[in-house]
């Protein structure tokens, strides 16, 4: 980092130069990152999500090295084990290791969440950007379509879709994203409409830049902060939606473990072993809480209103 003193030593060329600009080069992104880093709780929450994601990615390794079982491994001798040394978080009615299943379940739950966010963000951004930038009838058509998408009762759509397609992580993400992109499109359009008013857009047109350049080089970077915030807040919501769908049997089907369908199973045995409900529940709770806290931290750090 360059200290402020560097400005003082700058040689001043021709007459008429204003000195000043007392701070070293700081991009918006740097500054936001600095602000985010200063938020300890937010960073801890973010770190937790990263750790969960890493564990999910490395699930096969964990099966091999830590728990020594596969998530689908049935062991009828070891049913309803309480948490202990042999099975850290116990086992279920088929003797499957809960920790292993949670770790593999994280692949599904987090994977679906990230994939859904990525899908709704890319579709939503494109639609919102095009609608906001071009305006007129293009805007009318696209936004009326968004209105319709948002008017669809999501739960019925999910039921219908899960009947039509056999849900796996990718189709499930696509199903959730098929509704989720609508609100992103609205958000982006609103942001584009306000950025579009600013003189630098006109200034860029005045030097001969075309639509593509304006959208990619100028609108997108200025819309990006709200997208980042939307993405970080979205992850938590989608984990909840996905868990609910799994729980209802509309999502990932057993025996593939997911946090949601682990709960479905557990409800039948709630009185036999409360741990079967508690662990997936706590995991979902912690993950969603962490992602909400992180999302809020990101919003505070990136809040576009803090900057002109």
């Amino acid at each position, binding site marked *: 980092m360059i200290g402020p003193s560097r400005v003082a030593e700058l040689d001043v060329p021709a*007459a*008429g*130069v*204003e*000195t*000043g600009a*007392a701070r070293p080069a700081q991009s918006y992104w740097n500054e936001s990152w600095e602000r985010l880093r200063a938020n300890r709780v937010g960073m801890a929450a973010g770190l937790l999500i990263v750790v969960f994601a890493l564990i999910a990615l490395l699930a096969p390794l964990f099966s091999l090295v830590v728990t020594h079982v596969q998530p689908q491994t049935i062991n009828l001798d070891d049913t309803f084990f309480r948490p202990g040394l042999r099975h850290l978080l116990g086992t279920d009615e088929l003797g499957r290791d809960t920790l292993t299943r949670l770790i593999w379940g994280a692949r599904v739950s987090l994977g679906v969440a990230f994939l859904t966010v990525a899908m709704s963000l890319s579709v939503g951004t494109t639609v919102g950007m095009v609608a906001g930038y071009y305006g007129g009838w293009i805007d009318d058509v696209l936004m009326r379509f968004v209105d319709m998408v948002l008017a669809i009762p999501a739960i019925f759509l999910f039921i219908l879709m899960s009947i039509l397609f056999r849900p796996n992580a990718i189709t499930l993400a696509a199903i959730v994203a098929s509704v989720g992109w609508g609100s992103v499109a609205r958000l982006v359009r609103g942001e584009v409409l306000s950025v579009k008013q600013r003189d630098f857009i006109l200034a860029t047109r005045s030097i001969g830049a075309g639509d593509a350049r304006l959208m990619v080089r100028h609108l997108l970077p200025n819309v990006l902060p709200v997208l980042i915030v939307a993405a970080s807040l979205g992850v938590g919501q989608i984990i909840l939606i996905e868990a609910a769908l799994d729980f209802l049997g509309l999502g990932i089907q057993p025996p593939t473990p997911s946090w949601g369908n682990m709960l479905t199973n557990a409800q039948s045995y709630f009185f036999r072993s409360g741990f079967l409900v508690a662990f997936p529940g706590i995991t979902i709770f912690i993950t969603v809480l962490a992602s909400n806290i992180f999302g809020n931290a990101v919003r505070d750090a990136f809040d576009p209103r803090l900057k002109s």
Partner: protein
Amino acid sequence: MTQPLLEVRDLHTVFSTKEGTVKAVDGVSFDLTPGETLGIVGESGCGKSVTALSVMRLQRPGKIVSGKVMFKGQDLTKLSEYEMREIRGREIAMIFQDPMTSLNPVFQVGWQVGEPTRLHHGWGAKKALASAVNMLSRVGIPSAESRANDYPHQFSGGMRQRAMIAMGLTTTPQVLIADEPTTALDVTIQAQILDLLRHVNREFGTATILITHNLGVVAGMCERIIVMYAGKVVESGPTKDVFAHPTHPYTWSLLRSIPRLDAEKHEPLKPIEGVPPNLADLPTGCAFHPRCVFRVDRCTRDVPALLRVGESQLAACWVTQAGGELTGA
């Protein structure tokens, strides 16, 4: 000399910012005599608005840390918030730069203009409205009776500023503080509002503090001016003397840097180099010294006090206090 109506003595108002404590008003003193129009001139960030707000005790989030504001024998800085409310709007009224946002969009103009009388005189709605209508017509709103029922968005910028002035005058205050009252307005409307302020000053005898960055406006409006720079008064005196023989280099350079409509031939402007200082990181000594063409060694070390220079003026400048002349190309 007449007894001053308002005496501001060594006023200090600070703001705490990320970059540290900022002295927005740094030892400002001035008097306002009854019926006069005093101009406070300076660029953005010089502390002229904060000075006015401090007089009204509306400087928040800033804090008045020391100094006195004497008004009718009492020190306004010592009053409770409740006592201060009795002064605001009744004895000292204020109008602001942006007439678009200083009226509440959900109330009718007449209702708002009558508000000070309802508040301070306890008048009923009817009586307050009648006085509001009267005042609106006196500030030049045509068919005031029907326009009083309009909402602010139905008024043009100039008319809103008239309504603001009317609102300020309903309680016949002794002091009117106008903070950049014409900056947001077009020139022909500015001329109307300035004319109205002159008229108000004559007819109601209201002493006026006119805060502006426009040297032309003070030239035509004010008997006396004070010039502020970086939170301090750098020069004060009768307007005609300050314009004819500025005794602070800032005033001197500022007058030479602005284009004049009545210039006979085209001569290049003589700009003040550099930028106004960052209040959180002021230069040592005189805050103007980095931009000053007359500076001597002492200016970089010691802060000059505001002292008498010449017949009628005060200046905070080591050079002119030592008898130096401000001349040059």
